[in-house]
């Protein structure tokens, strides 16, 4: 394990506004495993940034380095322009909402929320006022004098939130704070959390492995993979213009076709020819990605005709209801299944077993080099 001193290239103080978070080539090893790999990231003040990625990609480790529970082996971290290298958690202007809430079982809800102010030796009357204010903010005033063990998961979540914001940190770190909640409560809390963030104007760094959650709440999403940053962009860009096949596959569902480019730059795959907006250099291999909602299905009028681009023929294996959309599974042979989603009104009435034709526009094809 390497434990290098703070790198000399990182100055102690840079002129950056309150609430800016900068990670500068940050790496972290656990034994011989690289958990975070030269991560560069800049979070703007007041921004809602999500760290999104599969389990084990280093999201929590990144957050813990910001909070001060882990120390980077390489690189520098600045919060509000100050280097925090070597600074213990209790001296950082950040607070954390922990995944399992970590409420103190021996203290009441109010005492939990007031804990941070007690540490700052704030006068008791002021603590009281601010605790009430924070509890009102998360609608938990009624439960102020209860012990946290007597609360439901969602209520504990709110208390953890109130406790973390009472110190008015310039940056709030949240590690899958909604992970323990059921779906409905989760969606409610997503909205509340987002509202709270814009009201407080705090920088939020939000860890999740739920892409829908990340897309719906964040100003920008940082997609991570094996400790590295894959893409950093707003939800629209991450969804519409993923930087890699990995991001494309992680955000939403995708139909992937792999093949080799022909003379005109279209991709020849096992299931037909796919043409995108741009031509692929002849002879190179590439991956085409098409979102299920960009694919239309219809009953096949005739058998497959040779030379048709961006269309495949197959047999309908199943139709499932996803609420406001219908999802069609089209079997193309060799066990390859194409996904297609159509909005419920106007969705074609097809029965499993029907011969179908699925097609899409060249403009909806994303191409990635392999």
């Amino acid at each position: 394990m390497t434990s290098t001193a703070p790198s000399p290239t990182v100055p102690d103080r840079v002129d950056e506004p309150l609430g800016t978070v900068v990670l500068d080539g940050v790496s972290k090893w656990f034994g011989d495993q690289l958990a975070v790999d030269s991560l560069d990231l800049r979070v703007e003040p007041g921004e809602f940034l999500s760290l999104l990625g599969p389990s084990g990609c280093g999201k929590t480790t990144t957050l813990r380095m910001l909070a001060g529970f882990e120390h980077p082996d390489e690189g520098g971290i600045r919060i509000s322009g100050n280097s925090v290298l070597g600074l213990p958690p209790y001296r950082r202007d950040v607070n954390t909402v922990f995944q399992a809430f970590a409420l103190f079982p021996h203290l009441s809800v109010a005492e939990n929320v007031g804990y941070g102010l007690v540490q700052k030796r704030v006068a008791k009357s002021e603590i009281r006022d601010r605790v009430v204010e924070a509890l009102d903010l998360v609608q938990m005033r009624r439960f102020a004098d209860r012990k946290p063990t007597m609360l439901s998961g969602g209520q504990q979540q709110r208390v953890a939130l109130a406790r973390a914001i009472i110190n008015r940190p310039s940056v709030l770190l949240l590690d899958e704070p909604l992970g323990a909640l059921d779906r409905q409560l989760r969606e409610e809390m997503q909205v509340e959390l987002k509202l709270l963030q814009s009201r407080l104007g705090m920088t939020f760094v939000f860890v999740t492995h739920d892409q829908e959650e990340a897309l719906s709440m964040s100003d920008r999403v940082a997609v991570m993979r094996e400790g590295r940053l894959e893409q950093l962009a707003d939800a629209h860009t991450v969804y519409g213009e993923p930087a890699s096949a990995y991001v494309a596959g992680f955000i939403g569902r995708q139909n992937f076709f792999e093949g080799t480019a022909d003379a005109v730059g279209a991709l020849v795959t096992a299931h037909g020819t796919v043409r995108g907006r741009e031509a692929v250099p002849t002879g190179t291999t590439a991956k085409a990605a098409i979102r299920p909602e960009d694919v239309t299905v219809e009953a096949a009028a005739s058998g497959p005709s040779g030379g048709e681009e961006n269309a495949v023929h197959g047999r309908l294996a199943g139709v499932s209801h996803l609420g406001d959309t219908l999802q069609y599974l089209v079997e193309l042979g060799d066990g390859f299944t194409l996904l297609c989603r159509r909005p419920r009104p106007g969705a074609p009435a097809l029965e499993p077993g029907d011969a179908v034709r699925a097609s899409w526009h060249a403009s909806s094809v994303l191409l990635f080099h392999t």
Partner: protein
Amino acid sequence: MTSQITTPRPRQDASRTPPSRKRQGKWWLPKPLLALPAWAWLLIFFVAPVGQVLWFSFGYKPGIFGTHANDVLSFDRYAEALSPTFFLTFQNTLWVGIAGTLICLIIAFPVAYWMALKAPLSRRGLLIALVMVPYWANFLVRTIGWQVILAPEGWLSHLLQGLGLTNEPLEILYTRTAVLIGVVYNYLPLMILPLFVAFDRVELPLREASKDLGANRWSTLTQVTIPLAKPGIIVGCLLVFIPLMGDYITATVLGGARGNMIGQLVASQFQTAQNWALGSAMAVLLMLIILLTVAVAALIVWVASRPFAWRRRLVIGEDS
């Protein structure tokens, strides 16, 4: 298309009552009966012997060959027991009991804290085994081991003289200090283990949350770790203090005449003097003293912690 309005079902039927408790479980036995083995154990091994001792203590020693008789009941044995020797021994016992418990706590606290919260997880089994190793040897043998070490001609004495730390042979065997060393050594694991379990149960995220909220190490220790470990600390102190007060082996082997403890007085009445009545009275007094000391200690700790508790308390109450 027909427009159909569904009427909501009443959410709660006023006539509904919670199901009767009898029908809830499949146990047809009343719940207290489930504790029968525990009650039996308590009755046979605690209530009965203590009751017998109590009964004997109101009797007398009938003659040179009898051990006890209860045809005349009186408190005379208690008056007899409360002799100057008893008070002296009582003072000594209390001193050893309190000092021994405190020293055990002071030593065990950092050790258990380190074992539970700082030592690598993979070494834990080994550390617990090391704490338990002395227990593999017989209590008496362990104590005699200290007799050998602390003797004026023992190796510790020679070592200290050799190092020039003292000029005379070590003179602590058969003193209160020797007893204290013996009991701390003998009872330390009984303090370390409950403290270890208590600290182990204070989860890391709780201590991290504390630091995250601005508490330094000391504040985290006093405001999160110790309050949460409190039951374990109390158990450890009781587990050491109570048997220590009644211990007579350590005192017999290491204390000699100057390191006498009440346990020895009781034992000698039962074994040497064959006066079970007096021995029982002394045993009852010992139990009362232990209960009283624990109660007083609890009161002192409670009173001393009040100012802190009041300062921490934050009651919001209902909406105003």
